[in-house]
């Protein structure tokens, strides 16, 4: 890994040719990036409005001329006849005789080699560069795989303390965002294409005027950011325009956290937890195991470590929550309560630890709370109370107080400066901005990222203000021509984080340099460059700005420092040191205890967050952890309440709140608190792109700035209509009409101690097969996998990682609802027991790689056969698609291309694909291969060095991305490999062992650690 900066420049020439290499890899990626075709594509697709402008211009001379000016020098070469012919040939081939490769002559494939090959490039061998993905200001440190300057796969930075190799789904899927053909591709003025030059000129006038006014008319609205460079630029900018104002708004913000901190300590501080040291954890509606919770990647790892009965004392998790979350699923004790009740529980806790507070009390919660209090006391100093972001400040304040009185501060809880570079109250901030807009104070509004016209609270009416008050200069800077761009004259296309330089802080404050992996596909400009332009240094590149800033911070031996920082992926000594803060006595006002009426909870969507990812097919099709819904949000309701209101799944209801109305389909969510509804934000986009536009309903329409997370007094009424919801798991329990099936095996800690082998079951003797068993134990390697169900928190990371690594197609809602989704690994979620508050379990299911694989004996053409190392190989080009193997697969992990699911045309997507994995065509069966491409690469490397493959040298994509380290892959012939050790554990069992399939993938049974005092037991 090395500094990219010189390369970035080089890249421009090389992009085109770099693209050549993977021709000998997969038809999906043949032919070169060809902008003629991009435009053709654009013209065909019934895309959102904004394509039109390009479409009209497509023919015109100046546009072509502009393209040449605006795109890398390579462009002209990309348009060469050869490549286009090659490309069309491919398209012809792929459409006419989809996958007939077996008996057709190869089309002539030209080779376009480097003239001067860069020394670090070996075609076919990927390079990895460290960078970081930022969400809500928090960086996830990454290593990105790059094939000839094309980023193809995102992986966690295993050296980085905040990642340890793990990532979250948003980081994993961001690669697709980068290649998204719907991203805005040019600067536009009132919808017409403009150049950066035009933009600069257009701005000079107004800026000069503002200089006179000391920037009085300038307003900047940005998202939360933690970039030190940007913060510095902001400082300079405000120094230059003292009267200008900088506002921050993000719909899923941390206002409550900071307000809570202010309440407790009089200052906004970041709270950092150490779950590895916590024996007892009480979550007050905090979903700290879900992507989007700052530091979740690290927290999951630490939490999972403490859930291993073999390694030290198992921690115990109490969860109070207002919805059914993954964290709740992992709890040893969980109670669902309406959001407004959580504060009451917080008070019960608080008063128990001598905090003066209006002591609420609810009888039926007593046993739970008593148990929690008892455990917390007995573990003071090694316990933890975690408040949820969407809980009111008071809950946070109480949590802080309790943690302090338990002496957890400095042990399991740490306070630091906020990672957020300017932690202001977002709702106040945007309200103030709108106030200024309406009172005509604003002459120049620059929206840096964000989409307030869509996601601002319903009552502040941002979109309306933007429309009605005609601010002379309105600039939108973003990745998409979205709802906000529509209302601004200027739109400047943003550079994706994989395209432009920046920096940002991880949850612990550690700074990562965000270095680009590819030259901007559409010559996007980063926020840094915009700000530079505003502060009169137009033309300085993002690279110079970021590097420049750090040069100032770190003068001594800068080059070495810079290279190291880029190489490692973070900057030494930027981690925030814990900070001494003392809690003021919280005199908490008696919070409004749960009134009887129905409440409505707004939550960030587990898959598409606040809506910014709604054009990301991978995320849209990612089953939501608890109900496996895809492509939609729904109105989640508890079984009991649904019965009372006699609502059924897929009934369309109208929710109204203070006159505003929204319609959505009902989903009955086991474990959801009664008398409460939950809706996910981020859907119902009008201008998201081909993927996200018009998907689901827009819950922001009911979201008021006063009640951003929980609103009471909603009314709900069935409209009589129904709406199809696409869930990937229709049946979410192991109970059947004739008994319960032992799919996820589980026991309490005591039970496990008493009977460690509870999960084992009689396995049929090896000889019990017609065919001669193959002596796999004689081989150097026998690949196997162990999945620790205790560790798995259902975060879905493995699914996205697999999708990215293995070029898995997105099929769309219609096909998902038919059960034709293509995920090679799925995470089954099962509910057991009382549906009002069930125990919930996750079970990731990849191909089990059975030694006696039922799929193999039935394939008429031998398209699936066993390798000597025990892999159940699937040969796509041999498959004729009888689907017999899938019928005969007891685990149903095989996926069939019922239609032409892969996108064979879009050039950007071709660049994204992993050149080491075939792109499957229509009519072909596919499935998990244990990432055989990685095994082969590892083997070749090892054999060239004349050695064995070391344990952990080859990691499957799912294993690599798993933040919980719950998936372990390796050589089971090596008794010392991690996987062998895990399989040797008592908890180890294989799924459906009685079928004598002899799966290579086995599971470690799930152990829960409930408090025996408490009556209500799991399982």
């Amino acid at each position, binding site marked *: 890994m090395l500094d990219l900066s010189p390369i970035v420049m080089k890249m421009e020439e090389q992009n085109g040719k770099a693209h050549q290499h993977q021709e000998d890899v997969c038809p999906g990626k043949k032919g070169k990036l060809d902008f003629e075709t991009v435009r053709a594509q654009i013209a065909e697709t019934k895309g959102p409005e904004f394509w039109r402008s390009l479409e009209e211009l497509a023919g015109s001379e100046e546009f072509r001329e502009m393209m040449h000016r605006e795109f890398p020098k390579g462009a002209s070469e990309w348009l060469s006849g050869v490549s286009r012919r090659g490309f069309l040939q491919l398209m012809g081939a792929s459409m006419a*005789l*989809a*996958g*007939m490769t*077996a*008996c057709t002559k190869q089309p002539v494939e030209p080779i376009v080699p480097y003239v001067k090959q860069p020394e670090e490039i070996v075609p076919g061998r990927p390079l990895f560069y460290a960078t970081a993905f930022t969400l809500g200001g928090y960086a996830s440190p990454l290593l990105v795989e790059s094939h000839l300057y094309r980023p193809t796969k995102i992986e966690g930075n295993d050296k980085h303390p905040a990642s340890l190799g793990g990532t979250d789904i948003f980081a994993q899927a961001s690669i697709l965002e980068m290649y998204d053909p719907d991203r805005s591709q040019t600067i536009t003025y009132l919808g017409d294409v403009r150049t950066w030059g035009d933009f600069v000129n257009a701005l000079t006038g107004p800026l000069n005027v503002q200089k006179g006014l000391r920037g009085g008319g300038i307003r900047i609205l940005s998202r939360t950011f933690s970039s030190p460079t940007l913060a510095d630029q902001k400082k300079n900018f405000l120094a230059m325009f003292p009267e200008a104002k900088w506002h921050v708004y993000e719909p899923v913000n941390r206002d409550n956290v900071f307000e809570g901190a202010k309440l407790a300590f009089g200052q906004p501080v970041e709270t950092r937890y150490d779950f590895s040291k916590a024996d007892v954890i009480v979550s007050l509606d905090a979903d700290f195991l879900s992507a989007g919770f700052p530091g979740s990647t690290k927290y999951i790892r630490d939490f999972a470590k403490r859930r291993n009965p073999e390694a030290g004392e198992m921690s115990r998790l109490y969860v109070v929550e207002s919805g059914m979350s993954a964290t709740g699923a992992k709890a040893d004790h969980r109670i669902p309560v309406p959001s407004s009740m959580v504060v009451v529980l917080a008070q019960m806790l608080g008063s128990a630890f001598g905090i003066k507070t209006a002591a609420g009390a609810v009888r039926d919660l007593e046993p739970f709370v008593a148990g929690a209090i008892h455990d917390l006391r007995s573990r003071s100093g090694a316990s933890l109370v975690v408040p949820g972001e969407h809980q009111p400040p008071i809950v946070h304040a109480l949590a802080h107080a309790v943690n302090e009185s338990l002496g957890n501060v400095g042990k399991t809880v740490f306070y630091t400066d906020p990672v957020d570079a300017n932690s202001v109250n977002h709702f106040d901030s945007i309200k103030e901005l709108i106030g200024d807009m309406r009172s005509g104070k604003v002459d120049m509004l620059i929206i840096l990222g964000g989409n307030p016209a869509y996601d601002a609270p319903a009552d502040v009416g941002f979109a309306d203000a933007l429309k009605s008050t005609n601010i002379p200069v309105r600039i939108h800077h973003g990745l998409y021509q979205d709802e906000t761009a529509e209302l601004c004259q200027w739109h400047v296309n943003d550079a994706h984080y994989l395209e432009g330089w920046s920096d940002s802080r991880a949850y612990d404050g550690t700074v990562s340099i965000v270095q680009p992996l590819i030259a901007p596909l559409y010559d996007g400009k980063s926020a840094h460059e915009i700000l530079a332009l505003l502060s009169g240094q137009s033309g300085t590149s993002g690279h110079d700005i970021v590097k420049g800033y750090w040069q100032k911070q770190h003068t001594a031996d800068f080059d070495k420092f810079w290279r190291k920082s880029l190489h490692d992926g973070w900057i030494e000594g930027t981690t925030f040191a814990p900070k001494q803060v003392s809690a003021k006595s919280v005199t908490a006002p008696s919070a409004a205890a749960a009134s009887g009426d129905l409440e409505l909870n707004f939550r960030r969507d587990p898959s598409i967050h606040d809506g910014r990812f709604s054009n990301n097919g991978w995320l849209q099709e990612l089953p939501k952890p608890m109900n496996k819904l895809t492509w939609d949000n729904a109105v989640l309701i508890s079984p009991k309440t649904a019965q009372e209101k006699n609502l059924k799944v897929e009934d369309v209801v109208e929710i109204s709140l203070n006159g505003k109305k929204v319609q959505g389909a009902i989903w009955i969510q086991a474990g959801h608190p009664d008398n409460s509804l939950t809706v996910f934000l981020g859907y119902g986009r009008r201008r998201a792109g081909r993927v996200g536009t018009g998907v689901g309903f827009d819950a922001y329409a009911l979201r008021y700035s006063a009640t951003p997370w929980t609103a009471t007094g909603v009314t709900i009424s069935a409209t009589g209509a129904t709406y199809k919801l696409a869930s990937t*798991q*229709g*049946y*979410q*329990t*192991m*109970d*059947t*009409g*004739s*008994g319960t*099936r032992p*799919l996820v095996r589980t026991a309490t800690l005591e039970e496990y101690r008493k009977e460690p082998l509870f999960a084992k079951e009689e396995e049929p003797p090896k000889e019990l097969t017609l065919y001669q068993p193959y002596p796999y134990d004689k081989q150097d390697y026998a690949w196997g996998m162990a999945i620790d169900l205790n560790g798995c928190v259902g975060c879905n990371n493995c699914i996205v990682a697999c999708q990215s690594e293995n070029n898995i197609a997105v099929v769309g809602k219609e*096909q998902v609802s*038919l*059960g*034709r989704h293509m995920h090679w690994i799925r995470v*089954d979620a099962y509910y057991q027991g009382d549906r009002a508050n069930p125990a919930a379990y996750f*079970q990731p*299911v990849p191909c089990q790689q059975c030694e006696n694989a*039922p799929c*193999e*004996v*039935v*394939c*008429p*053409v*031998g398209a699936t056969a066993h390798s000597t190392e025990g892999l159940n190989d699937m040969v796509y080009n*041999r*498959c*004729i*698609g*009888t*689907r*017999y193997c*899938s*019928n*005969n697969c*007891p*685990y*149903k992990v*095989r*996926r*069939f*291309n*019922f*239609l*032409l699911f892969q996108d064979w045309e879009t050039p950007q997507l071709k660049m994204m694909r992993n050149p080491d994995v075939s792109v499957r065509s*229509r*009519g*072909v*069966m596919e499935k998990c291969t244990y990432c055989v491409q990685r095994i082969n690469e590892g083997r070749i490397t090892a054999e060239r060095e004349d050695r064995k493959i070391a344990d952990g040298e080859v990691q499957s994509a799912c294993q690599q991305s798993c933040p919980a380290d719950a998936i372990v892959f390796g050589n089971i012939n090596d008794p010392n490999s991690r996987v062998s050790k895990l399989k040797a554990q008592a908890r180890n069992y294989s799924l*459906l062992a009685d*079928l004598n399939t002899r799966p290579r993938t086995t599971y470690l049974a799930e152990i829960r650690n409930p408090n025996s005092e408490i009556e209500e037991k799991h399982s």
Partner: protein
Amino acid sequence: MSEQTEQKPLRAPVIAPGYSFGSVTDKISSIVLTRPASNGWFMGFGVAFLLMQMMLFAIGYLVLKGIGIWGDTTPIGWGFEIVNFVWWIGIGHAGTLISAILMLLRQSWRNSINRFAEAMTLFAVACAGVFPAIHVGRPWLAYWMFPYPNTMSYWPQFRSPLIWDVFAVSTYATISALFWFVGLIPDLATLRDRSEKRPLKIIYGMLALGWRGSARHWHRYETAYLLLAGLATPLVLSVHTVVSFDFAIGIVPGWHTTIFPPYFVAGAIYSGFAMVVMLCIPIRKIYGLEGFITETHLDNSAKVMLATGLIVGYGYIVEAFMGWYSGNRYEEFTLWNRLHGPYHVLYWLLWICNIFVPQVLWIKKLRTNPFWLFIISAVVLVGMWLERFVIVVMSLHRDFLTSSWGMYYPTKWDWMTYIGTIGMFLAAIFLFVRVLPMISIFEMRTLLPEAEVKE
């Protein structure tokens, strides 16, 4: 023709009295040669032909788009296509059974129905043959299922029942076709001699392969026919046995059972006879062949149906019993799912159609009553189709992991293809009755009193 010696007319006559060599020949050949095609024929053929076109269209679209246009999905990888395939193959059993086995058993009553039973068999097998070819994801590569020398130095996977299918079905089709054609030769010669029009003479002449009816011809004919009968007999049993392996070999609960081969064969004969009866009742009416296809035939066929129906019933009961008795939780659930699951109505309908209704055949009146027999046969055919649906779809849709359960909904393309094959079948039948003697002339003649050879 020693056959006749032990054939004393103690049993009910299998041919109405008053017929002579000449009249038999006239009667049958006239249908082909002199009788003008009625409007009814044209209408019937037209409709059937259109349905067949619909099937071709559906298949065309399938090849363009992919299996996704059907209702198939994960976990239900096989839907209508396999249901129909097995159904048709089953129907395609009666012909050869009647011709070969009954012949070997010297059941002379077969003579009047074997001809179009065989024809029906061929057409049914043809209909069945449509599906294996198109049900694969990449039909243009289906030829990989045949062992042919190739540059991949890679063979088909001979452990797969699908490969066995390829051989079983193709062999069966070939033998049945040969058997049928050999049987036709003497009659083709008759048609050649009797047709006035030159083109007809030429066509029938060529088909007759220069048959002159000499003693040697007859001798060779008898040997060949007997040999083919011998060859065909095991096939009748083997084909559906092999087809049943497609399921019995699988581990899917509801498939993985050893009883499949016998009860598939029984079921096949069951549906086969039902189809024969369903066809011959209208035909004998329309073409006034009550003299040749007498109530005896209906009665006997009905008896065969009753018998095979009981075997099938036994199969169901054993299946259900073993489901419970096995103590295997997945088998148990499959039974439960059939009785109470989302498709339970179809399962009960299956019992009604295949087991309960046909019991009325114990009553001789109904066995010999064309109308009721026709209805019952129709019911049985529906029932047999349901049986295949229950086996294929209902077993697949809920197997081992509850997380992967699914539902199957056939699409319009599934229906178009299925109904299309019925059209194809009927169209073929219509043509057959027009251009070939649907009843074996010479074999009928052997049934005449005159034919009895006095020692």
